[in-house]
């Protein structure tokens, strides 16, 4: 399979704290990679390095290479702003822009950048992709905060999809949602795999097992094991992975 994202000896720091240690892995195109691990293991830092959101935190720095389609995105000459249009992100807490309508939220990535386009068509396409269209098509001019938590999160996914990214990073996208909303998001992830490559961070191991093709286990900033999801959950090679997935930590 064609590698979409290649990470080579990635290191990340918060001031003196070495948050990611020499992580290397490859995500094939049109697959879902799940990142699991206990709190503070570097999962979130890892995905935030992929779209260079990490470097926005004061005192944060990183080294190593992240290649998307073979192109190094951490090279000096690459503008992180352009990179983030190719590598989209969905956050743990749904964060629609509260001052904007549902419609404007979807096209925010274009509008805020002054990009013109066929907004109505794009809004419909993105909302359909995010499986939200039928629920909101009659209230596109309402405020985004009038939606329920699960709808808000799908709106955020639609907003990320509207800029047409190639890679979508999801940082615990369903951790604040009820099981039905979670199932919708998971169903969505499986469908999105057709058109993009997805990296999802999750605390919920069953969720990782359900949605991902491969799973990476992080511990104390290190990538302990990365393999096919089924193997990680039935027969992990590393004892630390085994301990984590069977619940023998701490």
């Amino acid at each position, binding site marked *: 399979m064609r590698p979409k994202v290649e990470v080579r000896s990635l290191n990340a720091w918060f001031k003196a704290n070495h948050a990611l240690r020499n992580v290397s892995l490859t995500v094939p195109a049109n697959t879902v990679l799940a990142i699991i691990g206990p709190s503070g293991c570097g999962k979130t830092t890892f995905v935030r390095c992929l*779209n260079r*959101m990490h470097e*926005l935190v*004061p005192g944060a720095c990183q080294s190593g290479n992240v290649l998307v389609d073979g192109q190094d995105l951490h090279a000096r000459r690459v503008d992180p*702003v*352009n*990179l*983030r*249009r190719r590598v*989209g*992100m969905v*956050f743990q*807490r749904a*964060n*629609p*822009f*509260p*001052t904007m309508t549902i419609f404007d939220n979807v096209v*925010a*990535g274009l509008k*805020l*950048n002054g990009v013109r386009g066929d907004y109505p068509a794009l809004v419909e396409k993105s909302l359909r992709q995010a499986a939200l269209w039928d629920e909101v098509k009659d209230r596109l001019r309402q405020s985004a905060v009038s939606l329920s938590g699960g709808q808000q999160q799908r709106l*955020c996914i639609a*907003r*990320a999809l509207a*800029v047409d990214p190639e890679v979508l990073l999801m940082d615990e996208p369903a951790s604040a949602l009820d099981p039905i909303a979670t199932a919708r998001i998971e169903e969505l992830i499986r469908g999105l795999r057709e058109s993009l490559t997805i990296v999802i961070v999750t605390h919920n191991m069953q969720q990782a097992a359900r949605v991902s093709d491969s799973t990476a286990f992080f511990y104390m900033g290190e990538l302990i094991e990365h393999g096919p999801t089924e193997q990680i959950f039935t027969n992990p090679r590393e004892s630390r992975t085994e301990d984590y997935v069977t619940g023998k930590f701490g």
Partner: protein
Amino acid sequence: MNSLMARRAVNWIMTGLCGLALAIALVPLVSLLWLVISRGLAGLSWSFFTALPAPVGETGGGVGNAIAGTLYIVGIACLIGVPFGVGAGVYLAERGDTRLGDGIRFIAEVLSGVPSIVVGIVAYGLVVIPMRRFSALAGGVALAVLMVPTLARSTEELIRLVPHELREASLALGVPQWRTSLRVVLRTALGGIMTAILLTVARAAGETAPLLFTSLNNQYWNWRADQPTASLTVQIYNYAVSPYAEWHDRAWTSALILLLLVGSLALAGRLLSRRRVR
């Protein structure tokens, strides 16, 4: 059971004490309102809002020029103070986690503690002396200097209240920092900042001391920024220190008008913020 009774008793006594403290605190406020309304209401008429002040001995007349002057001076103060105040607040919130930011915050803190009469003297030195005359502009500058530190601090706080997630959402969409600050963060905080501006304006409108030797006073209508201008507060001061009983009455009525003006500004600010919260 005994301890439950005891706790209930303590609870009751403490609630009572708190209520008492509230009542005592309300006494000066209510009596002030009562005094201003009861003494000022008699002189209230339409012409009091529109007419020029009448000389001693004449009945009638009003404080129309002072009301206009107050609005005029406050308007000038807003034109100067709001951009500086809000701008400084945005800077402090976005880039203020440095020594410089801490310094600015400290100065703002000190500045908001400076007695307003001192601010008046500064404006006198800065504007009145070079221009060689008292003017609305000098009054506006004085009020602006008063507004900037509070406005800067409240703007900073309001921007910091904007969830970090929104900023990240925007950045993650490939929106550059400056556009994010302006079109997402400031936009989201705007309602709160409007409220802050209204409350700060209300406070500035009630100031007398900074205007005493900046805009001074004027017996006539004035719309020129470089001329002395009447204001409600100075007018009240002048009426109040005069030896004439009817001027004292006019001082009360003017005070009532000032109270209404400031009160409605503050109320508007509150309503705005409540609508935003909902």
